[in-house]
């Protein structure tokens, strides 16, 4: 989930979720960054409405199965 947390951190900070930014955040956290995963994350999130996903979470914190990220 580190990659997801990094994306949400950036999003919450009002920054763009770019490869560069995600990599910088992960590096700062001491994570050994895999470029392909960062690229996959950024590409995948292009089509995801983060705001909407977050508000879903705020409304109903229900049990959810974590999937690999």
């Amino acid at each position, binding site marked *: *989930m580190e990659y*997801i*947390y990094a*994306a*949400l951190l950036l999003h919450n900070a009002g920054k763009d979720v770019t490869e560069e930014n995600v990599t910088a955040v992960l590096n700062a956290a001491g994570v050994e960054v895999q*470029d*392909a*995963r960062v*690229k*996959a*994350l950024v*590409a*995948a*999130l292009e*089509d*995801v*409405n*983060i705001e909407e*996903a*977050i508000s*879903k*979470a*705020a409304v109903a*914190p229900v049990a*959810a199965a*974590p*999937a*690999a*990220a």
Partner: protein
Amino acid sequence: MALYTHHLPRWKKDEVEEIKRGIEEHTLVGVVDMYGIPASQVQQIRRNLRGTARVKMARNTLIEHALNELGGSVATLNDHAEGQSALIFTNENPFKLFKLLEKTKTKMAAKPGETAPEDIVIPKGPTSFKPGPIVGELQQVGIPAAIEGGKVKIRETKTVVKKGEVINKKVAEALVKLGVKPMDVGLILQAAYYRETIFTPDLLAIDEEVYANNIVLAAQQAFNLSVNAVIPTRLTVAAIIGKAVSEARNVGVEASIYEKDIVDLIIGRAQREMLAVALAAQGRGFELDEATLK
């Protein structure tokens, strides 16, 4: 680096140059497998990709030459160019390209010996066939064909081949006659070189839904952590207050602390307890008065 081409004939040199240009002029170059795709299908796919991606077919040796001449990390694409490969050039990102190629897949008739990509189901209903040997041919492969009203009809829906099973010659022939095209045919992206990185299909087949779900999960976790560890943020402080208030009310009611804000809750509890005992007593022969029954 011209080392590789100096002995090549002119037309091959031109091919290699064209490939190199294609790679240099696009942000992404991919290796696709063309095996088993008929020419007509290739034309269709090219049409579908027009404006987005270009497919360049060339001999593997020439592709190898071109990649080696460019050198560097792009040359590692060679490891993925096997069988009947072609190159694909695009300025899309590899995930988009992967999806695009998935979408350009078309259905084709099955050849004997191929594996069913999904259950092959023949629906019941009339066919266009006139009575003849076709009935026997269909029946032979387990398709319940019959003659009805001067036409051949499938009596009931039947799964002829299960997903993952090999399609034998007789079945393949029957399927062709029925016009069933169970095979997915299209360009299969074996590897993509994009921004100094090689992407393989396992990385490319991303499911946005999984990412979206993980975003929701992460947001929930952050929310939970903030509330449970009492780290107030603008987003969560209301929930934290709510939790504190609920806890205070619980304590107040449990301990029967008579305070204005919760005395009604305590009354409610007493009332419910009274009703519970009243009903229990009624079950043992105590007649309830009208007010209680209300």
